[in-house]
């Protein structure tokens, strides 16, 4: 009996005659051959989640088994592309559909099969190779050299290898395996998206994922290969923060997943990235970026797949030995897609209607992050950092998606609507946020930036906490009742907030600050605070005088000093000393 549809309800299709099907097998549904995936089996009926709109599909239509699990194409050509949730290039969809609207049943391969790439072998005939070994390279973009690797689960001796212009399906090498067979190898690898790519082992990372954002790098730094969460209510700046990270973080390859978010935002990334210059390399940002866009009005099941598609591509570049950063905006939409499918399968709901496996799926996703020792010879090291945005309903962090994510991420950047209302950006709450990487990174900061970097960081955090306590007192009794020392804490905290933490993502100079410069700005603020100690201790000192010192305006401008003129901070510090000293009443 051939497989036929017996029920259609939204993205869920049930078919009978599916005894041959396996879990997570890709199937083609109905006459239009819509892409679907088997997610439940009962005897000979299978539940299928369909990645395209099912309007018009009727019982009795055929279902076709493909024998494959949902996989992505991995080969040169990924960078600079924009894909939908199941790796169909959106530009080709537009071409094939002949319309700006996404219609159904469009079958386009993930990667172009005709583009010629200049393959340069890096091993010679007779070399013994195993999974992960680099066979040769292709200059994929001006920024990234694509390393063509021996696919996982393969081992043998290179029988032949050819250089020159090749498509991704051309045979570039033959490998003689242990049983004496010659196996052809192409540049194209396929990998099932729900299975993590193998590595030799995981490592503890001591490298900083520099982002150019002052509050992140200095106060709540993340390690390369780390996992972080950015939860926040709408309007608090999740997307702006994610985009800033994609633009300025010092990873070599960026995977940006727009999962169930706004269409115009993806368009913004698409129009902006080709023109933006990467501060670390001087090349357009698009050359190191892969975009995955499954906007909120695109089919919900493909949204569920999009994060896996993204992370598999990310792992592939990690395996080449690159530092990869993946941004998923927003993982709440991914969780909701799971909830929707679970509801249609009539599964027993867990918290707030989410399926009971929400926690394990979330953990499984974030665990694919990490700093690793790659498969293959040459001791390559790669890292995959994952930063997931969360959109908690009503901005309430106690909801299941936030809580399940916090259990598996080590960096928590809490966005705060109240800060956003005051136009304090990035609206990251310094009292709620935390990082668990500070200790691992402490030595790196000390070595590469300054000995006392971590000391300054802790001092800043302490002052901000003290400010919070003092503000409660001020609210009750006013500023006048505070001691000069306490007033100084408030003043320093204010400078940290306004002159250091506040950062304008739209200002070309302000958008990116190197960690070295961040350190100098903070040091200048503390220089001021330290110089003021003897001044405020004078009897009957009028605090207002200190507050209105013109040098404070200069400190406020320090964040706009060009990166190339770090020496300006030396002058600034001398000026601070002189200016504050002028308030000493000399006997």
């Amino acid at each position, binding site marked *: 009996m051939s497989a036929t549809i017996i*029920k*259609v*309800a*939204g993205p869920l299709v*049930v078919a009978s005659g599916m005894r041959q099907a396996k879990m997570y097998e890709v199937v083609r549904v109905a006459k239009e051959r819509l892409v679907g995936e088997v997610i439940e089996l009962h005897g000979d009926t299978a539940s299928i989640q369909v990645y395209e*709109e*099912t*309007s*018009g*599909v*009727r*019982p*009795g239509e055929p279902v076709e088994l493909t024998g494959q699990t949902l996989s992505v194409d991995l080969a040169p050509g990924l960078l600079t592309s*924009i894909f939908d949730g199941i790796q169909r290039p*959106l530009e080709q*969809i*537009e071409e094939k559909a002949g319309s*700006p*609207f*996404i*219609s159904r049943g469009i079958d386009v391969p993930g990667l172009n099969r005709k583009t010629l790439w200049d393959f340069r072998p890096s091993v010679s005939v007779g070399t013994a190779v195993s999974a992960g070994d680099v066979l040769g390279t292709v200059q994929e973009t001006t920024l990234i050299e694509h390393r063509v690797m021996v696919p996982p689960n393969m081992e043998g001796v290179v029988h032949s290898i050819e250089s020159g212009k090749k498509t991704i399906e051309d045979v570039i090498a033959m490998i003689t395996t242990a049983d004496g067979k010659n196996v052809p190898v192409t540049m194209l690898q396929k990998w099932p998206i729900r299975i993590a790519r193998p590595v030799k082992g995981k490592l503890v990372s001591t490298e900083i994922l520099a982002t150019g954002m002052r509050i992140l790098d200095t106060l709540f730094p993340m390690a390369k290969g780390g996992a972080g969460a950015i939860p926040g*209510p*709408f*309007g608090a700046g999740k*997307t702006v923060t994610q985009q800033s990270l994609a633009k300025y973080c010092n990873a070599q390859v960026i995977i940006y997943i*727009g999962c*169930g978010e*706004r*269409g*115009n*935002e*993806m*368009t913004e990334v698409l129009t902006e990235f080709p023109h933006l210059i990467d501060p670390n390399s001087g090349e357009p940002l698009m050359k190191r970026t892969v975009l995955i*866009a499954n*906007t*909120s*009005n695109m089919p*919900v099941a493909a949204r569920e797949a999009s994060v896996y598609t993204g992370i598999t591509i990310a792992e592939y570049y990690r395996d080449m030995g690159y530092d990869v950063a993946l941004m998923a905006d927003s993982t709440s*939409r991914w969780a*909701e897609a799971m909830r*929707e499918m679970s*509801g249609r399968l009539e599964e027993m709901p867990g918290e*707030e209607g989410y399926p009971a496996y929400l926690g394990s799926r979330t953990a499984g996703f974030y665990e694919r992050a990490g700093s690793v020792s790659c498969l293959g010879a040459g001791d390559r090291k790669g890292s995959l950092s994952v930063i997931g945005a969360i*959109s908690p*309903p*009503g*901005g309430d962090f106690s909801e299941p998606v936030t809580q399940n994510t916090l259990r598996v991420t080590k960096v928590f950047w809490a966005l705060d*609507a109240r800060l956003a*209302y*005051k*136009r304090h950006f990035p609206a990251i709450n310094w009292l709620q946020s935390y990082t668990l990487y500070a200790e691992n990174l402490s030595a790196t900061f000390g070595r590469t930036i300054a000995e006392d970097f971590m000391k300054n960081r802790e001092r800043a955090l302490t002052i901000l906490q003290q400010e919070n306590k003092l503000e409660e007192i001020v*609210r009750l009794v*006013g*500023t*006048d009742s505070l001691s000069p020392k306490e007033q100084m804490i408030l003043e320093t905290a204010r400078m940290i907030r*306004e002159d250091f933490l506040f950062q304008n993502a*739209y200002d070309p100079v302000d958008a990116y600050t190197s960690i070295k410069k961040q350190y100098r700005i903070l040091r200048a603020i503390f220089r001021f605070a330290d110089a003021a100690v003897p001044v405020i201790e004078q009897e009957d000192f009028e605090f*207002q005088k200190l507050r*209105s010192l013109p040098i404070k*305006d200069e400190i406020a401008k320090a964040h706009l000093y060009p990166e190339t003129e770090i020496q300006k901070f030396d002058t600034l510090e001398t000026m601070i000393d002189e200016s504050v000293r002028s308030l000493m009443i000399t006997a």
Partner: protein
Amino acid sequence: MSLSAYKTVKSISGPLLMVEGVNDVAYDELCDITLPNGEHRVGKVLESRKGLAIVQLFEPSQGLKTEGTTVRFLGRTFQFGVSEDMLGRIFSGSGEPIDGGPKILPEKRVDINGYPINPASREFPDDFIQTGISTIDVLNTLVRGQKLPIFSGAGLPHSKLAAQIARQARVLTKKDVESQGAEVGEEEDGKFAVVFAAMGVTFEEAQFFQQEFEKTGALTRAVLFLNTADNPVVERIATPRLALTVAEYLAYEKDYHVTVILTDMTNYCEALREVSAARKEVPGRRGYPGYMYTDLATIYERAGRIRGRKGSITQIPILTMPEDDVTHPIPDLTGYITEGQIRQDRSLHQKGIYPPVIPMGSLSRLKGKAQGEGKTREDHSGMDAQLTACYARGVEVRELAVILGESSLNETDKAYLAFASAFETEFIKQGEQENRSIYDSLRIGWKLLSLVPRSELKRVKSAHIDKYMPKK
């Protein structure tokens, strides 16, 4: 494609019909239901199985019987005939003309669900729309192709505000920008249309819009869909989709710049909840279905611009927040989809300030690209950030003054207090007919900023202070 009729209605509950013995109807297929007395109703297939179809009515189930009711499956999805002649016409919430005019001869029949716009085919919206309202133009700049809802509460003047925006909105011409508004009045290029959809609003409110359009002569270039409070609830599910189908046709095929006003989205969501409850689905927060985010997205995302097409769709949905609670699922999910929101505030309204748009909580995500040199003026984005920051501080100080007394404030705080009051009465407050150019609004902004000590102005560039701040 059997145009078969079935008389096998097994059960009717709320807006849902179970039809037995049906084998091959398509999901989402449209059906025509004939009552024993000859009346017709429209529905669509929500779930199709071997031997059973679940049909959702778009009209009330009153008078329906399990016996004698005939269901005909029409072999196509819900399509709507669209035409340029629809301009100037009024339709019911299910798309029937109700103004006594002739039937529409459709130029094209289109699926009301539309198709998602390919993100790679979109054009990023960056044309500044001057609404003539200071709080929107300066602080929450509206952009052509944006979806910017008004978050309101019961009894707040959201209709007036939406009507004022629809009436005054225009894109600045190059000449306007160069002359800084000195030569306002030049007509801009292009064709304009308003598509208005009312869902479950009162008769008065629907009348208000109708008269408003008539008064200003805008009715000839408007298409109205009216589902008032006494019309069937389930019809509301189709109403915004019909409106957007017409809007898409006008924008992307007939080159119109279309403003779509949808009011009130809260009623739409309630209708959605009703259908979901009737289907006995697992409810999400507050009983709303778990797929409400996706469902709302299929409405809101139908705004924007497309590369190579002249027209655009700008959406201004209105929703009333139950108990003014922004964390309620309806405003919450809306805020996650739309590109910002204009929030109305009850305490401002009680002070007699119109429009009661509160800067805290209002936001336009697309404003960055529409502010500044070439679009409006170089000092615009700095002014935006500075006014909002000053006002937020002023409000804080005001709360402090209530506890401690005004006399205990220091000079700076007193300045902020004065700023906050002046900001409310001079900047936020304006007349219902008052159409301020962006340059007037900026001028008021600079005047207000002069109340605050210069050392506090960290968000505006000092060169701009020298250039634009009125000299004392």
